[in-house]
C-alpha cells in the first residue's frame, strides 16, 4: 500500500500538536476558543500536505 510522504508527516504533526496542546487547551482560565486555534493549525498543515505537486514528485 502506498502512503504519500506528506500524509505521514501530517499524521506526525497532528499527533505532536495534540500532545503539546492538550494541557494548554484544558488550562483553567484558558480561552474557550483555544481548540479552534489548534484545529486551524492542523488544517493549515493539511493544506500543505494536499498542496498541488508536480506529477513526478512522490
Amino acid at each position: 500500500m502506498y502512503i504519500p510522504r506528506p500524509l505521514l508527516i501530517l499524521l506526525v504533526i497532528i499527533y505532536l500538536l495534540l500532545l503539546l496542546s492538550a494541557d494548554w487547551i484544558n488550562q483553567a482560565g484558558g480561552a474557550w476558543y483555544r481548540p479552534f486555534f489548534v484545529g486551524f493549525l492542523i488544517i493549515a498543515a493539511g493544506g500543505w500536505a494536499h498542496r498541488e505537486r508536480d506529477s513526478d514528485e512522490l
Partner: protein
Amino acid sequence: MDYELTTIIGLGSIYLMLLFGIAFITERGWIPDKIVHHPVVYVLSLGVFASVWAYYTSVGNAQRDGYGYLANSIGISLAFLFSPLLLKPILALTRTYQLSSLADLMAFRYRSPWAGTATTLVMLVGVTPLIALQIRAISDTAEILSPNASQGTLAFGFCVLITLFTILFGTSRGAVRGRHDGLMMAIAFESLVKLLAFLAVGVFAIYSGFGGLDKLNLWLQEQPELLFELKEVALFSSFHVFTLLFFSAAVAMPHMFYVTFNGNHGQRALAFASWGLPLYFLLISLPVLPILWAGLQAGSEVQVEYFPVVIGVAYGAPLITVLAYVGGLSAASGLIIVITLALSNMCLNHLILPIYQPTAKDDIYRWLLWKRRALITAVIWSGFLFHYLLDQRTSIELIGTIAFTACLQFFPGIIAILYWPQANKKGFVSGLIAGLLIWFIFLMLPIFIESSPLSLISINWREVAALSLIVNCFLFVAVSLWSTTTDEERSSADICALDTIKRRKRSGLVAKSPNEFITSLSKPLGKKTATREVTQAMKDLNITMDNRRPYDLRLLRGKLEANLSGLLGPSIAGKIIDGYLPYSIVSRHGSSDLNVIENRIEAYRSNLSGMAADLDNLRRYHRQILLDLPLGVCSLSSDNEIVMWNHALTEFTGIKSADIVGSQIADLKEPWLSLLLNFMDEDANHSYKHNFELNGQIKSVNLHKAEIEKSAGQDYSHEGVIILIEDITETEILEAGLNHSERLASIGRLAAGVAHEIGNPITGIACLAQTIRDEYEVDGLKNLAQQIIEQTNRTSKILQSLVNFAHAGTNKSHYENEIVSVVDCINEAQVLISLDKKSKDLSFQLDADPTAMILGDSQRLIQVLVNLISNARDASRSGGKINLQASVEGDQVRITITDEGVGIPAAIKDRIFDPFFTTKEAGEGTGLGLSLVFSIVEDLHGDIDIISPIGSAKSAGTQVILRFPRYQSEPELEIDDQDQETSSQQTV
C-alpha cells in the same frame, strides 16, 4: 415573537425556489464552468453534511459533552485530511466504473446483486431516522416562530414542499444522466447560506448577548462550572464513538457518497476539499458555544438545541431569528434533497430493476423518470411517517445517533474493499445483517416500544454501537475466511485493492462495428434507446460509426457499460452488456489488454514509489528501446491484433502508432498488409530483399519474425508474434551505385589498356607520316603526310585524355597540387564529352580567359567539368547550345557552364547534391555525380552555385557557377601589392 403560518411556508417556498433557480441556471450553462467546477463549490456542496445535526444538535451536545460536540467536525475532517487512504481510491473506483452509490460499490466489489440490495435496504432503514430528524427540526423551529400552528401541519407542509422540489431537482434531464452540476451548485449555495447564517447568529450572540468577546470571557469567569463542563471530555466517552461514526459517514452516508464522488470534478478538487472541508466545519463549529451561552444567559426555556433560533427572539432581533431559521431550513432541506435522490437511485437500481426491467418496447427514459419520482416521494414520506410515529420526547440527538450508528455497519465492508481482498459477499452480508440486527433490537425498537423486554437490558447507545460493530466485524472476517470466494469476487478484489489496476481482457467482441452494437443492444433496450446510448458513448470517446478497431470497440463496450451503469446501476448494466455484447473468444490467463494496462500505469505513475517505481522505470526503459529501435517493430497478439508499432515503422510506413495500435492486421493498407501476411504465412523466420512499390518508389526490406511465448502454468502458449522490418532501400541503392562505379572503373581500365594498345600503332603511323613528309618532296604527298600527322596527334590527345580520366577514378590517397590551367581543363573535358554520340547534336561555345589558373589537381577539375557538362548535355534538347566560360574576378576564377535545357524543378533543388539522388531513368545515372562534384569542389577550396531557371522564364536552362581561389604568380602578386599601395596612398 409570533409569525403567521403562511409567512413561514412562504419563506420556505421562496428559499427552495431560489435553490431550484440556481440549479436551473447552472444546468442551462448561464454560470461559467470555471465557477461551477471550482473546488470551492465542491467544498461548499460537501457542506451538506453539516445538517440539522451540526446546526441545532451540536448546541445541545456542547451543553452535555463540552468540547465533545466537536466529534462531528473532527470525524469528517479526519476522513478528508487523510483522503488518500480512503476517499481518493474510492473516488478512482467510482469514476472508472460509474458507481453512483455505496450499493453500487458493494455490488461491484462483492460481485453480487444481493450485496447491493442488502446495502440499499439497510441504508433505507438506517437513514429514515435522519430524514425524520430534519423534518422534526424544521417543524419544531417553525412551531417556535408560530406557536399557534400545529406541528403536524408544519411537518406535513414542509414535506409537501420538499417532495415537489426534490422531484424537480432529481428528475431533470441532467440528473437522470448522472450529471449533477445544477444540484451541486444549489447545495453549495445552501451550505454557504447556513454557514453565514450560523456565523451571523454567533457574532450576534457575542455582541448582543454579552457586549463583546471580553465581556463574554468575564461572564464565563463568573460561571466556572460552564468552563469546567466544557473541558471535561472523558477518555472513553461518546466523543470517540461519535468521531468514528462521523469518520465512516464520509463514505457510508448516502448523501456524503453522492456529493463526494458524484459531484467531484477530479482529484484536484478532492485534494482541495481535504483541507477545505475541515475548515468549513471548523468555522461552523465556532459559533456553537457563544450561541449556547447566550441562550443560557437569556434563560430560555426552549429546548437547548433550538437556541440558534431562540436567541434572536430573546434579544429582540427578529431578523436574526429569521436568519437562523433560514439557516436551519437550508441545512435540513439540503440534506433531505441529496439523501432522497441518492436513496431513490439506490432503490431503483438495487430493489426495482433486479426484479422488473422495462421491455424494449417501453420508453426506458420515461419509465425510469416516473419510477424515480415515485421513489423520491416514498423516501421523503417514509421519513415523515417515522417522524409522525416518533414520541415527541425522543431527543433529536438520539434520532441522529440511531441513523449514524446504522450506517456504521457499512464501515467494515468499505475498509475491506480497499484493504482486504479475501473478503467475500457472504462475509459482508452476514456481518451487515448481524450488526443491523443488534442496532435494531437495542436502538430502534426501544424508541417505539417502551415496554419491550429488551429495553430492560441496561445498555447505552455507545455500547450498542461498539457491540454491533464488533459482531459485524467478527462475522465478516470469520465467514469470509471459512466460505469460498468466487473467481469473480477475486477479480473484483484485485481491481479494488490498492496499487492494482484493472485487468481488462483483450478478447475480440462478437459485435464488429458500432452498428452491430446498436443491433445487439436493441434487444434489451429498444432500437431508439440503444441508438442513443451507443451514439452518446461514441461521442464521449470520439469514435466514428465506421470505426472497426477492436481496441476502440472494447473501449466503446466499457463506456457503454459505464453509461448504462449510471442509468440502471452496475448490476443490470453488467448483465445487459455481458449478455448482448459478449466477447468472441474466452480470454485465457495473461491475454490482458496491454494498451489499457499501459495507459492505467501511465496515469498512476505519480503514485509509484520504491520498488514499484523502479520496476516502472525499467519497463519504460525496455519499451523505449523497442520504440526507438532504428528497425521497424510490429508486435501482434495471438488473434492478429497490432499491439506495438514503433517510431521507425511509423516513419517508414507513414502510419501513426495511435491510428493502428489496437487494429487487426487485416486493417492495414497495402502494400503492408500483403507484405506482413505473406511473411507470417512463411515457415522461415527471416526473409530478405522484399521489393515493393511505395508512392512510386521501389522499396526494399528484410523481414524477421519471432513468436512470443508465454508461460501459462505448465503449458506454453503463443502470446503473439513480433516482426522486425528492416528498410534496406538505401543500402540497395548504395550497392547499385558501387556496382555502377565498379563497372565504370572497369571500363576506365579497359579504355586505358585500349588507349595504350592503340597508342603504339598510332605512334608508328605518326612516325611513318613524318618520314614521308620529310623525305619525299612531292607536295601533295607532303600535305597528305601532314594531315596524317595532325590526325594522329589528335588521336593521341584523345587517347591521353582517356587515360588521364581513367586514372582519375582510381583510389588515391594523395592528390597533385599543381598549377592548373582552367582553359586546358575545359578543353580536355570538352574533348571527352564530344566522344559520346549524345553530344553530337550540341554546340559548345567556349569563352575562356587563358590567365585563369588555380592550384589543385587538374584531373579532378576535369572530372568536375565532365560531370557538369554531361549533366548540361543530358538536360539540353537536340541542337541546343552549351556555354562554357572561364574568367578571372579579382582573386577568384569563375567557371560557368550554362545550358538551355529543361532546368531543375524547385522541389528538388535542395536535394540535387544528396548522394544517390537522381532524376534520370533507372540505369542511366547513379545519383553520385553531383555529390562527387560538390565533394571535389570543396577539396579544391571552391564553391558551387546553381541557378535554375536563368532569368524569370520558366525552364529556361541552368547555370552552374564554380568559384576557385585564383593562382597568381609571384610577379603578379608584387604588381598587385604595388597597385594596392598606390591606391592607398592616393586615398590618404
